[in-house]
């Protein structure tokens, strides 16, 4: 529609004069960014030039060639076979795997402990809630490194030797060489049990889907949870006995001055694991508490009002909403735990920082490459954890229309 000339319209002012170049925001921004980039480049050139000079003076060839030369030192705990003649590349791998290993175990224990502490903190039982408060306030206000030292130098190292080991029940021994525990040994027929587990898990998912569809259509419920427990635990157990119990334990036994058989968890790993997970659990406890408190009491009352019992209320109403609040800070706790596992270097658990950024760096002097690789590893691990947790978070997030 063409606009008719409106007799009441105010005559429009002339368009504002174009500002001078130095007053134009676009030009200013461009100028400023060019300056910043120039400055960064200057600093980078300065640093690189100095580094090259210094390296040349010290006679260190840069590059990643050192990864193929022989390491020449041994490592106490490795997840993959490793010996002195292996290369620095293999050392890197050993350290990396140890870092991941301790982080995974730490995350598991910290999550379990943290949820217990968080729920206990909200208990109506005064004593339980206060104990958990004392736990949180003590552990999170003391530096982690101090806690690691405490567990290692004050608790685990002064333990008696193997001959006076503390016995912690059947087949568990604690002494200054670590914690000995029975090692499960799978026999040939064990694959039957594994197969039974896989099959029953598959069946469980099919049944769950069927029950879901049926409930949507008819409203009839099916006890999926109890059925699942019965299926996933019962069937493999039956198969286990039917196959003639194809599993036995290799118990550690004192032979001479040391234990043989079983598995051993080194004091370094044990101290680091305990300290990392109890410390992180204090933070997770607070997060869990805040998450549960964030679900308003009206939700619980509404759930009771529509006739849900306590269990389903928790499972279907409270926990899904609390998780939304819990997951983002929980992610950063997992990241912290992974990064904190680098404190292993202080008690000589052979993680990435100790064997690679420590020993390898001392031996080769390739500071730039090694530190860059180490940092890249932690950045990648952080990225992976946050990607996984973001995916989970999106899955749990409120679906808004």
């Amino acid at each position: 529609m063409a606009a008719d000339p409106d007799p009441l319209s105010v005559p429009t002012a002339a368009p504002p004069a174009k500002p001078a170049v130095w007053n134009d925001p676009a030009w200013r921004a461009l100028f400023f960014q060019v300056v910043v980039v120039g400055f960064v480049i200057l600093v980078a050139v300065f640093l690189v030039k100095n580094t090259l000079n210094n390296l040349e003076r010290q006679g260190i060839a840069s590059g990643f060639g050192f990864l193929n030369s022989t390491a020449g030192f041994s490592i106490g705990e490795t997840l993959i076979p490793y010996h002195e003649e292996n290369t620095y590349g293999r050392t890197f791998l050993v350290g990396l795997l140890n870092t991941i290993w301790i982080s995974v175990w730490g995350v598991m224990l910290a999550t379990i402990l943290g949820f217990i502490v968080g729920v206990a903190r909200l208990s109506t039982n005064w004593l339980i809630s206060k104990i958990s408060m004392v736990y949180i306030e003590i552990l999170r206000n003391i530096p982690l490194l101090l806690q690691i030292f405490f567990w290692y130098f004050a608790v685990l190292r002064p333990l008696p030797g193997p001959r006076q080991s503390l016995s912690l029940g059947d087949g568990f021994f604690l002494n200054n060489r670590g914690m000995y525990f029975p090692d499960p040994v799978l026999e040939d027929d064990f694959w039957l049990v594994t197969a039974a587990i896989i099959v029953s898990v598959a069946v469980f998912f099919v049944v769950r889907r069927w029950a879901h569809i049926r409930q949507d259509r008819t409203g009839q419920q099916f006890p999926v949870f109890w059925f699942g427990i019965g299926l996933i635990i019962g069937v493999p157990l039956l198969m286990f006995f039917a196959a003639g119990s194809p599993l036995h334990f290799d118990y550690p036994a004192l032979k001479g001055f040391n234990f043989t058989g079983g598995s051993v968890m080194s004091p370094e790993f044990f101290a680091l694991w305990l300290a990392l997970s109890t410390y992180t659990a204090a933070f997770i406890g607070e997060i869990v508490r805040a998450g549960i408190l964030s679900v308003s009491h009206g939700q619980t009352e509404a759930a009771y009002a529509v006739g849900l019992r306590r269990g389903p209320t928790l499972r279907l109403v409270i926990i899904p909403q609390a998780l939304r609040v819990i997951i983002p800070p929980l992610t950063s706790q997992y990241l912290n735990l992974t990064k904190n596992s680098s404190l292993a270097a202080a008690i000589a658990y052979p993680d990435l920082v100790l064997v690679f950024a420590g020993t390898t760096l001392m031996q080769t002097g390739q500071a730039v490459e090694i530190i860059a690789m180490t940092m890249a590893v932690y950045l990648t691990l952080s990225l992976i954890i946050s990607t996984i947790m973001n995916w989970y978070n999106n899955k749990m997030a409120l679906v808004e229309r």
Partner: protein
Amino acid sequence: MSEQIAHYSPGTHPDMPAPASIVGLRGWLQQNLLSSPLNIGLTIISLYLVYIIVPPILSWGFIDADWRGETREDCDRVGACWVYIRIWFKQLMYGRYPVTELWRINTAYIVLILAFIPLFIPGFRYKHWIGVFLLFVYPVFAFVMFHGDTAGLEIVETPLWGGLFLTLVIAVTGIVASLPIGIVLALGRRSNMPVVRALCVAFIELWRGVPLITVLFMSSVMFPLFMPEGMHFDKLIRALVGVMLFSAAYMAEVVRGGLQAIPKGQFEAAQAVGLSYWKLMGLIILPQALKIVIPGIVNTFIGLFKDTTLVLIIGLFDFLGMAQAVATNPDWLGFYVEGYVFVACGFWIFCFSMSRYSQHLERKLHTGH
């Protein structure tokens, strides 16, 4: 019937006392410890836990502990040997700082405390001058006092610094330096200029994604490589640079949280009255944003304070490093626990009071609804 039955018109009955099951000690016990069979069980388990944990700690730390004496023979090792802490107290507090010069550190402490007292007086009018003094004058004063070499003070090299003193130096320097860097980074991250934003994001995420210990390794082995030939920095400076970069990244995220919490109307209103970018930020946005994030800054400081213990890995003797070092003294081998408990108490007092203070601020600054 001899009892008289009183008649009350509706609404005039005097209040009756609450039933015994909900008031007093019995009511409290019934509600908080014994409300259900499950709770009774939990109470019994917790009481047992308390029983096996608390009395041994008390008897170790106080009842059986040895407080008097000069040598390790004065300790019977049944309880804690606090003699050990008394003997090494100076080292734990000041490291190997010359004993005759300790007054310098103490003076700086006292000045700091005196400067802080007015900040806690509500209604004191010159708080911002104290802030200026603490941020710009005090660091220079403290450095001159600690390091010497000017004003007729004897020079004390940084390798002699140690103990709680070094921990405080690192933590305070880290926080004071990281705040301005963090603010600049946070502003950069929210800038409209893509290059600036990308650089700031990369910087922040790099330091936040790696552990402090690799940053310290980097600053201790790579920093010398970065500098021109012949330029030498001592270990403490290198550690400080690492700590600063690291905490600046965390600080930037805290400040960014504050910036995001400021409603858009504030920016628009400031622009509408014609303020330039720096005036807009400095006069309108940052004062509000920083106020919101004071608790976050305090929390970052607590984290940084605990993390300073990591400098012992690159060979500085901070509070924990000193405890670790004196525990290897041949005359006093095997007193790890006492040293750790002492250091833990020190850290705990600092961190706990700071976290309480931050909670207090959070309540005080919560001026919303």
